[in-house]
């Protein structure tokens, strides 16, 4: 799947966590610590149309920004090349919803929001992947 085939924003699942990325550039920009922390390992990317692809791993291409991307903590902002583990496939809204609800359950941080119950209810009633993405972005 090339970047032109993806409809942004996308939702990325890894472990019990999720990320929203609004464009290709931010999708492939991270830090060396991010790669080291396994952010891209077995990541599942689902675009706004429900088209999904699994990432096997990420490889550093080059630093980004001033000082080759290094900050004072010596953590480097980098561009990565994604290695995909599968061909793109279509995901149902319900499958995406299950993954998000699973994150709600397993990732403690969600429940520290003041509007968690409303958010959860909204996700449960969402009819499209795009709507789910919009909800968790808010």
């Amino acid at each position, binding site marked *: 799947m090339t970047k032109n085939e993806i409809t942004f924003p996308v939702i990325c699942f890894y*472990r019990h*966590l999720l*990320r929203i990325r609004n464009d290709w550039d931010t999708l492939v920009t*991270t*830090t060396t*610590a*991010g790669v080291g*922390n396994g*952010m891209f390992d077995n990541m599942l990317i689902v675009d706004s149309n429900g088209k999904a692809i699994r990432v096997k791993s990420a490889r550093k291409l080059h630093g980004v920004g001033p000082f080759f991307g290094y*900050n*004072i*903590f*010596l*953590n480097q902002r980098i561009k990565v090349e994604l290695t995909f583990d599968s061909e793109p496939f279509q995901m149902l809204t319900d499958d995406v919803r299950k993954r998000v609800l699973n994150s709600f359950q397993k*990732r*403690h*941080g*969600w*429940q*520290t*929001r*003041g*509007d968690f119950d409303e958010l959860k209810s909204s996700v449960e009633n969402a009819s499209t992947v795009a709507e789910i993405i919009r909800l*968790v972005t*808010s």
Partner: protein
Amino acid sequence: MFTRLNKWFFFLSVAAFVWLPRADAMVHPMNSPAQVTAAITQALFPEVEQGALIVEDAAGNLWMAEYVGKNPYNGEDVYVLSPLGLDYVTTEGNNVFWMIEKDSFWYNPDVRKILVGTVSGGEVAFNKTFGAGTGSLDLLKKYAEHFWERPGIVFSLAADISGEIAPIQDLTIKDYIQHYVRDYGCATIGEYRGQFQPKTVGEPGKAESFAPVWGSGRQAIYDVQTGHYVWGTVNTVMAASDVFLVKAAATGIAKGAWKTGGVAWSTVRRWMGKTGRAEARQELHHWAIPQGSWGKNVPNVIKNQPWNLMPMESLELHDAIHGWGEMSKAERLMYGTPDWFKALLISESGRVGNELRDQGQNDQE
């Protein structure tokens, strides 16, 4: 993330700039003849004994006196406290050298090595310039090591003495003084007795040193006035941290520092929103005592309190702080602790440093 980083960078920069201009002024207070002349009006009048190399004033401060000639105004001997920024005494063969500011600033035009005499059997025979007397090498070394611990170098004169000084300046001392007084120099005139008060703010007392802002601020000013620029910087940063701490404490108290009544998470979360501490969409990070894992054993009344809750700017920031995102360990520590806690760490570290420093000074005495 970068906004928070910049805030700290800005904070440290301001702290540095607060004292740097003053430090520069202290390093070169008397560069021009006019400034040297002006310094004489702020001269010291210690108890000087003619011919002595090291003199001690009534306040117990140590000086090196150098004879510069007769005062044509009243015929009395005129001494100049040799304006030596003496760091330590060293020997090379039989020669005894007084090293001036050898280990001080990276760039320091005042650094000098002055031959003060020769040593034999532990006794120093001073050169004529320094009184031509004799003295113990060990004592001389002690004087040198403690030279910079004397009180501030800027003093005021009693009014009656100031009036007598003026003609002396014009007739004699001006010519001499420019040759003998270094940038740090203080002049003294033999036989005169004057009352002088150090123009330092004085060190804060024990209890006073624990007063936020005031204690560290006063210590910072005192350090700069007495030439301890590194400690001046440390205490300036401490004072700035204290300002932040006091502000954070005041804000916290105004909003309710401690949640009483219901402390179940849902109740506390609503209360955090109502008191304006966190928006509804924001996640809260239990930074010191986690809500899960070992924190489950800690009662809600302790862990579900404002001091332990940090509003998160984003979901990603929260994940990163937990080690599931783009931050390194150092960044997690930096961004995963509240600003008031970092300020408290800086402040308390500085206080411990000051305590150790005082302890060291007491031990030396």
